[in-house]
């Protein structure tokens, strides 16, 4: 296991590269997901506003 992490002495380079990749891809996935939820929430709020405008 230690050998695997050490990557023949290049561990720092290899793992930081993979780490940054995980960060970049993960952030993209997260932001995409969040954007979808945010739009739905915003539209729901607009809808609520419309209902309030309707006369009783």
């Amino acid at each position, binding site marked *: 296991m230690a050998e*695997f992490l050490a*990557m*023949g*002495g*290049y*561990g720092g*380079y*290899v793992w*930081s*590269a*993979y780490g*940054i*990749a995980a960060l*970049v*891809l993960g*952030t*993209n*996935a997260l*932001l*995409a*997901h969040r*954007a*979808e939820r*945010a*739009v*739905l929430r915003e*539209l*729901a709020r*607009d*809808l*609520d506003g419309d209902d309030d405008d309707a006369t009783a």
Partner: protein
Amino acid sequence: MFTFLHKYASLMHFYRLSTRWSSVLALVTAVLMAWGLYGGLVTAPADYQQGDSFRIIYIHVPSAWMSLFVYMCMAGAGAVALIWRIKLAEIWLRASAPLGASFTFLALVTGAIWGKPMWGTWWVWDARLTSELILLFLYLGIMALDNAIEDRRTAARAAAVLTLIGVVNIPIIHYSVEWWSTLHQGPTVTKFDAPSIHVDMLIPLLVMAIAFTTFYLAAVLARVRSGILAYDRNTSWVRELVGGARGNAHG
């Protein structure tokens, strides 16, 4: 055939279909990533010259391929948006830009990290890396232009023109940077050329490339869905959808 395609261009229809596709794509991405990472980090033998540092290739090369692939998708979407004014194409283009820029950034960073153990410096003005750098500027420019224009549709179409100007320039840039590189470094082999690649090293690379592609598709579909909701916010189907979601939240 056009009626078949037009069905998909309908935003509502695409929204419904893409939700299904996204889950499948996410699953496929996870499986392929796991397979590719295992192959790249464990199974593939260490390189004769570079040792284990070569394993960065499994991030660097797929990122670089994706940075160009996404740009080509954007150029295609841009052409469709300009010629036929298809809203879905406009949304696709705007949704893809941050993803393409991310891949380009990743290619550059992993290229630099790989460069340090290979040649001792964090950056070399290698032809391919330099071309990637210019590509990043193209992406940032498209995102900046898109951001600067208020109206969504105008922004998308302006970004489309810029993307197409860029796509014509990409071969020109690529060629001129290669010219420039050999001019200043002499006719050496481009530093990222692998002489001949062992099949055990190659398969994880291809798997990762496909994994990155399915990742892009899953992520861009999520962004496209947000865009569709924004475009069609006043239609009945969106109001129904949102109303239903809100009902579920309250009820």
